[in-house]
């Protein structure tokens, strides 16, 4: 859930399926999922489209909305701290449970009502993040301050954070092409949560998670991700178990361009 400053390579398309299983007190557990299409428009701009849905056990499976996300690299070169601007437009309903980020006063009980009630509430939100990320001796440390605004004028600005650190299990590549080499695995830990809103900023009535995470990059451009988020207070889900699988298609832009008559 924490972003570093690295963008998709220009012309590459990454397609990802990501699933979040969440426990729910005073309600039914759920499995929320999204399809993500991430395209490297240029070396400084990555654009992503999310299509999300969820299954609430003993209730129903519903479509919950879309997100359009853009990340812009601000500086041409690497620095100690590298800033990237993140702007996302969300068109979702209140039944959306992917918990991609926890904002403002989001708490577990918000997700308890049945889908039939939640889906009636539509949200159009603008979400902005400043992705600050630093890489040193194989470690990447990232901090994402988050601001969200529901586009209804009466709704307040909401605040949130995500912070994480990760490192490959080996820093040197082995000479052989291998799936299980240590350098293909990245381990990390992240923490994310809400910080209130403009009407009542602070930590009261907010939820927070601590999540160890692991990614496995295969040489065949497949990536598997696994993360288990543990709620840190009574307002949080006890467990958010996430897993995802993605495939990168290098040269997708070139291929599509040729389809529309661009020179090879």
């Amino acid at each position, binding site marked *: 859930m924490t972003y570093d400053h690295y963008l998709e390579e220009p012309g590459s398309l990454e397609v990802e399926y990501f699933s979040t299983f969440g426990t729910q007190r005073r309600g039914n557990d759920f499995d929320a999922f999204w399809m993500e299409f991430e395209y490297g428009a240029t070396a400084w701009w990555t*654009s992503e489209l999310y299509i999300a849905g969820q299954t609430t056990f003993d209730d129903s499976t519903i479509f919950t909305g879309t997100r359009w996300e853009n990340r812009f690299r601000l500086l041409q*070169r690497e620095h100690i701290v590298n800033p990237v601007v993140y702007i996302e437009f969300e068109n979702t309903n209140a039944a959306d449970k992917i918990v991609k980020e926890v904002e403002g006063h989001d708490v577990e009980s918000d997700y308890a009502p049945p889908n039939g009630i939640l889906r009636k509430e539509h949200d159009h939100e603008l979400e902005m993040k400043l992705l600050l990320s630093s890489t040193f001796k194989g470690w990447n440390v990232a901090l994402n301050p988050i601001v969200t605004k529901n586009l209804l004028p009466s709704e307040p600005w909401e605040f949130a954070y995500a912070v994480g650190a990760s490192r490959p299990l080996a820093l040197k590549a082995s000479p052989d092409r291998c799936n299980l080499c240590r350098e293909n695995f990245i381990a990390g830990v992240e923490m994310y949560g809400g910080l209130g809103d403009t009407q009542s900023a602070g930590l009261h009535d907010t939820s927070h998670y601590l999540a160890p995470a692991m990614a496995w990059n295969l040489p065949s451009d497949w990536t598997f991700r696994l993360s288990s988020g543990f709620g840190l207070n009574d307002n949080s889900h006890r467990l958010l178990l996430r897993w995802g699988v993605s495939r990168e298609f290098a040269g997708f832009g070139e291929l599509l361009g040729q389809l529309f008559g661009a020179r090879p």
Partner: protein
Amino acid sequence: MKLFFAVFRPMGCLGIVAIGAIVLAFGVFAISQALGQSENDSRHHGKKAKYAAMTEAPEKAREKRNPFEGDAQAVAAGGKLFEQHCAECHGEKAGGTRHGVSLLRDEVQNATPGTLFWILTNGVVRQGMPVWSKLPEPERWQLVTFLQSLRAKLANSPPLAAEPVGGIPVFAYLAVTHSIE
């Protein structure tokens, strides 16, 4: 307005989302193509301009020593990394494509290891080359070692030097020359 509802209402929410997603995807693609074209134009503004970024490496960075210099294992590992991360733009023979410059030219082959490392770390974002600092430092040095090994291989192979590693992917070429050695 009536026409709008007549057309879109039967499609339902998912249909509208699908159409919206397609329109959005084409919009992003069209803009990225236009931006990519202007980056290409600046990249191909002349041979010197193509490699201008090489001269921007600070003195301190240029002087950095390659800890894997002459290490055959590092060449092999660097070759693997090249195939995974670089061949798409620079060509599987490192001879360049529309999206990436040739790495067999003197500007690259005569550059210091530190300069190559600096370029890998910082990219040339304005010309479309992403930063590669996400690869750990030792992996970037392995890539530098591989790139520098191309010079030696080309120099030792006169028939192929005129048309660098002609027709043979770098890895096949290296495997052949390794086995000869």
